[in-house]
């Protein structure tokens, strides 16, 4: 039997349907589709996919278990390395990681590892078999660590991962979260149609079952300091507070009503559920014409959200060309299918208002010049090319800086010039026993990279605590 050359397609909601709802776009594989796709794995000896995964999920092994029909085992194999499989199966950029190095992908399309991970995770979640097995957990316990206290700041991907691994070692772990809900960017940033929040809830529930205590509404740096955590008997602290400070363009008119940071827009809709307004009391105003400035995944999320909230015309305004858009090609494809228009090689220079509200955005056309420091061709303004885009709403999605709330209130914590926390390869900061990982270290990156950092930190916190108790 010759192997199927292309990935088994995953069925999804038709674009004209899905722009009217906030339900998840892809439906996930059926049992049959998953088996067909699993058959495509060559089980090559050197397993490059495992090395391509930031948390080193034993990919061929879980696919083998799937083929053998043991889906519970398949899930346990994934969970041995990845504490949030249903999340990662949905939002990981697999095309840049495991699937990029898949041997099948040399001549054909790679194995759809992300879709298979999602299938296995969902299958077990639905049946309540998604918790780590007691046998597996017993193996991970470190007797010298049992009952000792470890603090984790931030309940996003980095913090949840670190907390889960620390709890597995037997530590008594508390997560302190500033918002009123867990998940961090998984909750406030990524929309429901890409990552349903009940999936986040269930993943967090599984982590709580490992014994992790989560305290919401605690802003470390304000409600309590890192020093006070040590005074309270925590022997280590992991900081995973993300990159939460929105950047603006610094052009005239940015404080007009109708200009949102992508963070504000998405937080209103995702965390505060403004898409169910007025049942939920937090409003969001979109109007008919919306421009999203920027071309990363957050920009795509904001544009597709605006469409679902009823905007007729939604534009992505980006100063470079399509090849340089940082968003995943899948997200750009989804956005274009939904009728989102790309206004490429256009740079916003001013936002003009009427009665204090957004009316137009003035854009200058650009052309591509030589390569710049980032290796991308530099956009160059074209003289006398300014034009007006009629708008009701502008959403600025050009990235975030680390939030200084914690770092500025923590003594002896060294930061880089742009505000990120300095760490070594072991994720330890300039303070002993204090580790950090995720966007607060790297600047805005991906969920899985943050999880990888959380994992590395947990392993090194374990070693640090073992070392400490020997003395």
């Amino acid at each position, binding site marked *: 039997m010759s192997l199927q050359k292309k990935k088994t397609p995953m069925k999804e909601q038709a674009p004209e349907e899905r722009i009217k709802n906030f339900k998840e776009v892809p439906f996930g594989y059926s049992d049959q589709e998953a088996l067909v796709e699993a058959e495509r794995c060559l089980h090559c000896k050197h397993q490059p996919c495992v090395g391509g995964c930031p948390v080193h999920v034993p990919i061929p092994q879980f696919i083998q278990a799937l083929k053998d029909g043991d889906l519970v085992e398949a899930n346990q194999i994934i969970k041995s390395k990845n504490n949030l499989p249903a999340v990662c199966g949905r939002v990981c950029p697999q095309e840049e990681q495991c699937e990029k190095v898949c041997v099948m992908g040399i001549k054909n399309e790679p194995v759809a590892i992300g879709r298979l991970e999602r299938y296995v995770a969902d299958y077990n979640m639905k049946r309540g078999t998604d918790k780590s097995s007691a046998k597996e957990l017993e193996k991970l316990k470190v007797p010298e660590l049992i009952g000792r206290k470890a603090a984790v700041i931030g309940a996003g991907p980095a913090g949840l991962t670190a907390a889960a691994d620390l709890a597995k070692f037997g530590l008594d772990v508390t997560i302190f979260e500033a918002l009123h809900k867990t998940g961090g960017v998984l909750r406030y940033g990524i929309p429901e149609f890409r990552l349903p929040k009940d999936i986040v809830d269930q993943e967090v529930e599984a982590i709580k079952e490992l014994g992790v205590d989560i305290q919401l*509404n605690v*802003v470390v740096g304000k409600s309590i300091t890192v020093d006070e955590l040590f005074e309270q008997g925590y022997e280590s602290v992991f900081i995973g507070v993300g990159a939460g400070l929105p950047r603006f363009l610094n052009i005239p008119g940015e404080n007009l009503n109708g200009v949102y940071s992508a963070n504000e827009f998405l937080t209103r809709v995702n965390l505060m559920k403004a898409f169910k307004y007025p049942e939920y009391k937090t409003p969001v105003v979109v109007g008919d014409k919306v421009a999203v400035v920027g071309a990363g995944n957050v920009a795509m999320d904001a544009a597709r959200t605006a469409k679902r909230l009823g905007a007729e015309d939604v534009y992505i305004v980006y100063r470079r060309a399509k090849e340089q858009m940082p968003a995943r090609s899948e997200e750009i494809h989804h956005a274009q299918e939904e009728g989102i228009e790309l206004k490429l090689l256009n740079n916003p220079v001013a936002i003009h208002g009427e009665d204090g509200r957004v009316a137009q955005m003035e854009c200058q056309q650009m052309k591509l010049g030589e390569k710049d420091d980032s290796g991308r061709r530099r956009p160059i303004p074209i003289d006398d090319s300014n034009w007006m885009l009629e708008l009701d709403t502008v959403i600025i999605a050009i990235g975030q800086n680390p939030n200084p709330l914690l770092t500025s209130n923590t003594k002896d914590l060294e930061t880089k010039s742009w505000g990120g926390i300095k760490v070594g390869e072991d994720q330890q900061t300039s303070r002993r026993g204090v580790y950090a990982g995720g966007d607060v270290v790297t600047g805005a990156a991906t969920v899985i990279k943050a999880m990888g950092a959380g994992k590395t930190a947990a392993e090194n916190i374990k070693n640090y605590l073992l070392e400490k108790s020997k003395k």
Partner: protein
Amino acid sequence: MYEILEKEVLAPTIKKLKVNAPMIAKKTKPGNFIILRVDEKGERIPLTVADYDRETGMISIIFQEVGYSTKLLGQMDKGDQIQDIVGPLGHHIDLEGYQKVVLLGGGSGTALLYPKVRGFHEEGAEVISITGARTKNLIILEEELEKYSDRLFITTDDGSYGHHGYVTDILKDLLEKEDDIDLVVAIGPVPMMKAVADMTDEYGVKTIVSLNTVMVDGTGMCGACRVTVGGERKFTCVDGPAFDAHQVDFKELMNRLNFYQDEEKLVHDTAVEEDN
């Protein structure tokens, strides 16, 4: 969940709640605020901490019922639970180094003023408080202000109590007669704060206002609370809420405060319909 331990009606639409929140009580200083969510579907609303007791772990919040969420909060009673409270947020006010301070509170802004009145008094400054409202029954915290003020002036727009006129009338008089005032603090509606700022600018007296902008997270994450101060973008939640009054772009602030008027009305009206 955060239990309401005491409730007091200060004026028909101004309520005071004492809430059990030990972690916040331990850390609060004058000028800090909290963000609360009344229930699962509620907005996150910022409110200044009016008082705190580190021993008993209680914080007091005083608020005027202006929209749906504050009305809902106003209907809650002793023993009820508030879904979420986070804080203390924002910078506290630096109280040290002043000899003579005039503090002005307009309407429910007086509730926000009170902890600063007490703070400056405890730091040993001479404290002159001016509180104003539309009419007599909206004057709040008179007794408390009296206790910590060297002089207290009361004004009402309709003349039903105290001076017939505005808080700025009294301020003008003080600025004319006393040239040793080294700080003015104003908290209230934007037009009142702007009027104070314009007046003290003429006399060259340092002035601080505390801004009550729209906020979502309150930790610097969303930028909804951005204001222009001295030509620069500031986030009220993490850079404020107090700013140099002479640097604040009040016109822009006023505009931004009005953005969600229609939406707030819709939520309010929907709730009224459901009640009927």
